[in-house]
């Protein structure tokens, strides 16, 4: 597959340019090739790693090896934690296919549960004693510990409740930020992105200037929230603002590769040309992120330089892996659709006439299919043109402003005429009724 040599070629380039960075020596992880699960999983830590692996396992189609690999890694990861519910879940899904080492370990489950009970009891005692002592700081810590505990056990709504309860006992700005970050984390895991937005706002309203890494984390979270709410333009703006100092510090939510991919694709789908150049291509900070996903970088550059065929090729090859991403999968189609539409519009923009067969070649589609797509765009008024179906040419057509104005004026005059006359008639009818009624009353 020619994809291979291209990506390895890119890798060479990266090695010579990147130099010291550790990540640049690795093969690009989000690329056109089938996903390397181990490498992908190593980008994350904590609960999100498990959830992502489980997602891949359930969405990888018929690919048995991939599924088993993902489930195996999930099992290992879960065993390091304290979530027995997820453990049972994963064992059911493995269904004995991975051999003896990966079957139900009830002993482990029981011991974990017992420990959890004990810990819970201890935490409750501590909390009640802190409450009686009325020391704000310790109560806050107590609730925080409870929140952490519930999160580790997988009881997300309880964890959320406890984190939110610490709000009353926060004394410094740092506490508030800590609380917000926890709340955001749990909300993302629960999928409640409106909460994410509100807590991001709360944290950003902080009077002190935020630590740059924390600020970057907040922007990532806010970008994710916008993405889930389908506000691609806002999401792109947030992701593009993330400073490269983020590095791997937000692994429990998002990896820098994701920032690059989400930001790049959303920007491509929703920005206009000038914004694309200013905020993405010329953005020095974002360049570091784009280095991690060279295919996305290439496709953005191709789009900007009007090499639509190769841009669409990259998009096509990335698609399979993007569908395995836990946040992006249900937006892939919309984003791709929007990018393709933008490409079509941008292609026709500079020309007075366009030969449809050449355009169809550029977009790797048939002439009749292209005609249909263009028809839809013309109806939506996104392309000002008309199709010469006989010679298969697209002619730009710019509405004659003067004529259009005259037409509108005449139309408006007629409408005014009709509306005023109807109105006067209605007023007359009402007056008559009023008089009739007044007549009766007197």
């Amino acid at each position, binding site marked *: 597959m020619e994809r291979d040599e291209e990506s390895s070629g890119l890798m060479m380039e990266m090695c010579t340019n990147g130099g010291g960075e550790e990540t640049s020596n690795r093969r690009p992880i989000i690329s056109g090739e089938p996903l390397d699960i181990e490498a992908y999983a190593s980008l994350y830590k904590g609960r999100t790693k498990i959830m992502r692996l489980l997602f891949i396992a359930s969405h990888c189609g018929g690919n048995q090896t991939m599924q088993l690999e993902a489930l195996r890694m999930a099992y290992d990861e879960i065993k390091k934690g304290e979530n027995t519910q997820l453990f049972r879940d994963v064992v059911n899904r493995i269904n004995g296919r991975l051999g003896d080492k990966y079957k139900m370990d009830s002993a482990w489950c029981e011991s974990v549960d017992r420990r959890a009970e004990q810990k819970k009891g201890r935490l409750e005692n501590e909390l009640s004693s802190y409450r009686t002592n009325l020391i704000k700081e310790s109560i806050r810590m107590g609730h925080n510990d409870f929140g952490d505990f519930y999160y580790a056990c997988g009881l997300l709504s309880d964890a959320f409740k406890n984190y939110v309860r610490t709000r009353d006992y926060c004394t410094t700005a740092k506490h508030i930020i800590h609380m917000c970050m926890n709340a955001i984390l749990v909300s993302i895991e629960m999928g409640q992105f409106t909460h994410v937005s509100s807590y991001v706002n709360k944290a950003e309203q902080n009077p002190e200037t935020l630590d740059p890494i924390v600020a970057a984390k907040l922007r990532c979270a806010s970008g994710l929230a916008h993405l889930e709410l389908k506000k691609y333009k806002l999401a792109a703006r947030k992701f593009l603002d993330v400073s490269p100092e983020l590095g791997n510090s937000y692994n429990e939510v998002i990896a820098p590769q994701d920032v690059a991919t989400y930001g790049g694709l959303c920007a491509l789908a929703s920005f206009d040309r000038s914004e694309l150049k200013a905020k993405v291509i010329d953005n020095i900070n974002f360049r570091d992120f784009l280095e991690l996903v060279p295919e996305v970088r290439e496709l953005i550059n191709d789009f900007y330089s009007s090499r639509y065929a190769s841009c669409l090729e990259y998009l096509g090859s990335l698609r399979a892996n993007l569908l395995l991403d836990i946040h992006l999968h249900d937006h892939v189609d919309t984003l791709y659709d929007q990018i393709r539409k933008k490409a079509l519009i941008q292609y026709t923009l500079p020309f007075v006439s366009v030969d449809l067969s050449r355009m169809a070649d550029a977009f790797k589609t048939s002439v009749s299919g292209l005609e249909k797509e263009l*028809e839809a765009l*013309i*109806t939506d008024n996104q392309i000002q043109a*008309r*199709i*010469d*179906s*006989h*010679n298969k040419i697209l*002619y730009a057509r710019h509405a*004659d402003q*003067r*004529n259009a104005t*005259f037409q509108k*004026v*005449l139309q408006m*005059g*007629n409408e*005014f*005429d*009709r509306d*005023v*006359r*109807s*109105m*006067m*008639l*209605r*007023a*007359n*009818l*009402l*007056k*008559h*009724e*009023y*008089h009739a009624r*007044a007549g009766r009353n007197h």
Partner: protein
Amino acid sequence: MSSTENLITSIQGLSASSGDLSALHRILKGAEETLRADSDLQLSTLDQLDPSKHSLGYLYLLDVLTCGGPMSKEKASEVVLLIARFITSCDAEQIRLASDKFVSLCKGFKDRVLELEDPLRGVAPLLSAVRKVQVSTKRLTALHPDCLQLCLQAKCYKAGFSILSDDILEVDQPRDFYLYCYYGGMICIGQKKFQKALELLYNVVTAPMHSVNAIALEAYKKYVLVTLIHSGQFSVSLPKCASTAAQRHLKTWSIPYTEVGNCYNEGKISELQAVVVAHSSDFEKDNNLGLVKQAVSSLYKRNILRLTQKYLTLSLQDIANMVQLANAKEAEMHVLQMIQDGQIHALINQKDGMVRFLEDPEQYKTSEMIEVMDSVIQRTIGLSKNLIAMDESLSCDPLYLGKVGRERQRYDFGEDFDTVPQKFSM
């Protein structure tokens, strides 16, 4: 006997000047009872009077003579002739003094004509009757709907259309108005002037009413169909100015029509035809089947019009495919029709089977266009003047002032907007 003779002499004597006429009017009113009781009064007595000079007296006598119950066909025919001659030759000034009588006479005349099943005889007389009774061209009379009804029955739409060209601004009776608009709408549909039909039907549908009446319902059904034919868009919600009763209830009574409208919006011919067939019995009952068929054929036109926005040239076969016509020949027919109607501008190249769509050649540079614009401007200025006059007269109306004065607290105008003097408060 003698009283009748006396009456006739006084009519002949007092029909000269306006002072005399008012005296005559009083006498006539007084003598009405005796006239009715007089069983000897014959149509022949009318020969003594001249309808154009003694219109008032003639009117009273004619009314007494003809308002009797059912008559034989010959008598009815004679009466009809007599009334028709009277109407054509009577004096408008005198008539207006007793306009109620005149109106009831004409209504009776109309009923007779319809009984005789010869509505054509009544059209011309009623047309002139309307003109004579009208105080101003802006005012609706009770005779307008009757005249239109006769025109509809007689199928002489042109005559009816001449009445409709007046702008009606003042209305006395809502029922007259509804009927006028409804019949007027039907006449315009007959003349294929859908713009005006839409206007008239719109007026009925949005007229203030407390409860839905049958006229408004029928008008609404036709309104829906005419909107489809004329502008190709359908929205289920009525305009906001329609009364709440109308908004709530009109739709529930005309479900087949709203279904047709919704289907039309989708743009698929086959579905629309299926809906039409399904409800054809309803449409037949309302006599709207012809209109529905016109609406269906207008969908083809709508779809072809949409194609002109997107294509510069298109083969006839492609048009047929996109618009779901049977073959290229039918497509050619439709396009030809539309070119002739002036709905699109195009050239058909029969050799290639291609249609080339052109831009609207109107450049808005000719003197005719300037005249059109000028007339529109003049109309608008006239209308604005009317509107201001209406507003002024309303602000002087004691009823209005009384009401606002009483409810001043409720409206909370504040110092600047309170235009009603204090003396009108409660």
